[in-house]
Structures are given as structure tokens and as C-alpha cells.
């Protein structure tokens, strides 16, 4: 996979949104980032853009703990629409939960490519983009 064009960040933490966006633009990891403050807003966006391939993010960083609709609920909704999306979207769950149940659940979930525990460093992010092929 080439460097992604579009990255989606689904996280209710505005500062985390800010820092991750800044890292992505600084290292030119993508052309554009989309910010969603909870899963429901992201699902709404995906539903609206389902047939517009260029508007679908190549990579999503998904927080698991959010109000309204959390990361797991997002995955549930995403799985329902997955077949209608023509592109392979890599979803990385990023969580401050060190709960082994969450990690195991993420490993068992097809839609999730990997699980990161916050804080996610610049090196972690770079590592993801250098090895995108491995997740496909």
C-alpha cells in the first residue's frame, strides 16, 4: 500500500486529535485527515460517502472509549456496511485501556488491524506507516 491519502481519527479527546493531526501533517503521512469526536459521527460520514471512494479514509485511528458510540459499537456498525465499501480500510484501535480483554477482543476482530495503547508516540505512528503492507 502506498502512503494513504486520507486518514480518519475517531477520538473524543480534542488534544489527541490535535497532536495526531499535527504528526500526520508534519511527517506528510497523508494528504488530509478527518476528525470525528465519536463513533456515531464517523458512521454518519461513512454512510453519506459510501459510494465516493476518494472520501473513504484509507486508515482509521479509532479510540475505544468515547461517549455516544464507543469504538466497539463503531466496529459493529462498520461491519454492517463493510461490503459496500470498495476500498480496504485499515482500522487501528488506539486505547488507553490496558485491559487484556480489550486487547484479545481486538485481536479476534477482523476489522481491526492492530491495537495500540495510549500514549502513542511519533515512532509508533511512523512504524505503522512504514509497514502498512503488513496489515493488508
Amino acid at each position, binding site marked *: 500500500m502506498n502512503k494513504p491519502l486520507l486518514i480518519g481519527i475517531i477520538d473524543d479527546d480534542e*488534544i489527541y486529535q490535535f497532536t495526531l493531526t*499535527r504528526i500526520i501533517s508534519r511527517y506528510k503521512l497523508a494528504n488530509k485527515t478527518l476528525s470525528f469526536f465519536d463513533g456515531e459521527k464517523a458512521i454518519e460520514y461513512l454512510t453519506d460517502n459510501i459510494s465516493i471512494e476518494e472520501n473513504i479514509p484509507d486508515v482509521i485511528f479509532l479510540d475505544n*472509549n468515547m*461517549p455516544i458510540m464507543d469504538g466497539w459499537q463503531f466496529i459493529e456498525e462498520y461491519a454492517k456496511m463493510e461490503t459496500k465499501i470498495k476500498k480496504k480500510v485499515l482500522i487501528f484501535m488506539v486505547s*488507553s485501556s490496558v485491559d487484556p480483554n480489550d486487547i484479545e477482543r481486538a485481536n479476534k476482530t477482523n476489522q481491526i488491524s492492530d491495537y495500540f495503547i495510549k500514549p502513542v508516540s*511519533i515512532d509508533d505512528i511512523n512504524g505503522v506507516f512504514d509497514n502498512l503492507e503488513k496489515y493488508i
Partner: protein
Amino acid sequence: MNYNIDYKELYNTSPYGYFCSLPDGTIIDSNKRFLEFTNYKRKEVINIKKVTDFLSIGGKIYFQTIYSQKLNLTGTVEEINFDFIKKDGTKFPVLINSVEIKSKEGHHIFTQSTVFNISQRKKYETELLIAKKKSEELSNELTLRNKELQIGSELILQQKLQLEKFNQELENKNKQLSNFTHIASHNLRAPVSNLNSLMDFYNESTDIDDKAMLFTKFEIVIGHLTETLNELIASVKIQMDVNIKHDPVIFDVILSKTMGILEGKILESSAVITSNFAEVPNIEYPKLYLESIILNLLSNSIRYRSPNRIAKIHLSTEINNNEITLIVTDNGLGIDLKKHRHRLFKLNNTFHRHPDSKGVGLFMTKIQIETIGGSIDVESEVEKGTTFKVMLRKI
């Protein structure tokens, strides 16, 4: 066949003693069995002893007043009990049956008596009496033991309840502890990692405007961190308050006070608040906690009212299985419990896009309730309303 039955022999060896006596009591004949019973020789008795000679003083009086009178009146006496005195002075109990034998002219000639030795029967009787007494004693003993057992089992039941209570408390403490760990790890790690990232940017940046912008971000994170820490400290304070004072509180009074505090919001929302605390009008409970619980539930109901109808909120109390329950029902937006139940009472979890939703109220409410040993449950349907049931305490 020709049977020569020896009636004399039968008379002598019968298990009954027989004797004949004159009207004045003198014994003029007896069978061998009677002599055996009394241990006298024939010549010591016949024409020498009177019936009364075999009786004690008490027996003689009874013989003359009852036995003789009855015999004179009716001609027969059946089964009168006497103690007969043997030659050696010892006594044995007998039953006597007597019949007056009369001449053709109706004169009393003599009396025929049978003497049945009832020593064996008396012995059985005594044994039966002893057995009866014993069984009564045993039954009393059993009743006593039963009572002791009952007291014992009540004690065990009490201890069991006590243990269950301790267990429940421990379970609550465990839950609170695990909650706390979760909150500490989740709600504190995030802002701290944000601070680190911002710090990296800040150090790398050479642009003054950029640094100033980053500084405003620091302020935001520090604000969040302070808020979360304060919430955690508040929750720990509550959890340490295990022995917090219980006051006698009246639900109506607390509700009036709470409605006073929320007056602005009630007016603004035109919410209709009703209550019925008839079943349980008052309770022993930490007053501040009850105020805070009612304030939180009530303000939640007002905040999450439906824009499509007038908000109606009803508060009531009831007793179920010795538990006092506070019920707060509204007709508001409702919560999708299938999706959100597991996060409902967690810190910083909200389910509605509302500017005032911070996800602290229900978290604190739950901690307050559980610290007192109670529990909170919720029933809800989206666009129908929500009912919170707070088990405050056992009686």
C-alpha cells in the same frame, strides 16, 4: 371317650385363689393357690383367720365401708383392689370378686371369693408408668433441644445474613477499587500522554505564534487533568466515608429543597414534578448523599427531557424484601440500554449530545449509593423515558 375331670384338682391348681367365708368374715375353706399366695398352712387359716386379718388398717376400713356394703346391697362385688398381707408381713396386690351364697329363705350363708394375684400386672403398670414418665421427660428434653436448635439455627441465619452483608460490602469495595483503577488508568493516562506530546511539539517549535497556540492547548489539558483529579478525589472521599453519619431524613423535605435548587431549570423547562412518598415517607440515611442523589437524578431527567412533550417526572418510594427503594421516573429521551448499559455509570461517559453532559453525575451517584451498601438500576426505552431504581438500604 370318657373324661374323668378332677374338679378338685382344677380348683386347687387354678391361677386364681378361692376361699369361702362366713358372713362375719371367717374363712371356712380355700384352695391351695390361695394358701400359696399368702404362705400360710391350711390349718393356720381355715376357721381361724378372717378375711380382714389379711388386710392393713386402711384395707380393713375400705373392706367394711365399701366392700361389705356393696356385697350386702347387690350380692356381688367385682374386681376390688386390695393389698393382701402374707405370713411374713410382705404385701401383694390382688383383685377380689365375691358372690353371696344365700339359702332358699334368702339368708346369707357364706361368701365365695376369687383372689387374683396382680403383682405381675402391677409391676407392668409401674414399668409402664416409669416408661411414660421417661417418655415425658424425653419429650420435654426434645422440646428443649428443639428450642435450642431453633435458637441455634436463628443464630446461624443471622450470621449467614451478616456474612452475606460483609460479602456484599467486600464485593462493593472490590468493584469500587477496580472502577478506581480503571478511571485512574484511563482518565489520567490520556491527559498525561497529551501533555507529553504537546511538550515535544513545544520544544521542537521555533515559531512564537505556534508556541503560544500550543500553550493554550496545555491550559486545556491541565484543566481536564485538574477536573478529573478533583472528581477522583471526591469519589475516594465518598468511598472512605463508610461510617458516615445516618440522619433521619424526610423524602418530601429533601425533594422540596432540591426543587428549590433547580427552580430556574424547572421553570425554564416547564417540567411537571410529582411525588408520592406515602409508602416510605422517611429513612435513616446520610442527608447530604440523599440530597445529592435526588439532585442528580432530577436534574438528569430535566436535562434529557424530550423536546416533543412536556417533561413529567415522578418520584416515589417503596419497600421490597425489606429494602427501601427510591424510584425516579421520567418521560424523557431515554437511553439505548442495549448499547450503553455497561458504560452508564462510568466516569466521563455520556450518551446524548448535550452541552452540560459531562458524565460525572451518575458516576458519583452510584459511588454514593454503593458506599452505603445500596445499588442502582435503570430501565429505559428510547423516546419513552427512563426509570432509575435506587435501592437505598435494607431495614
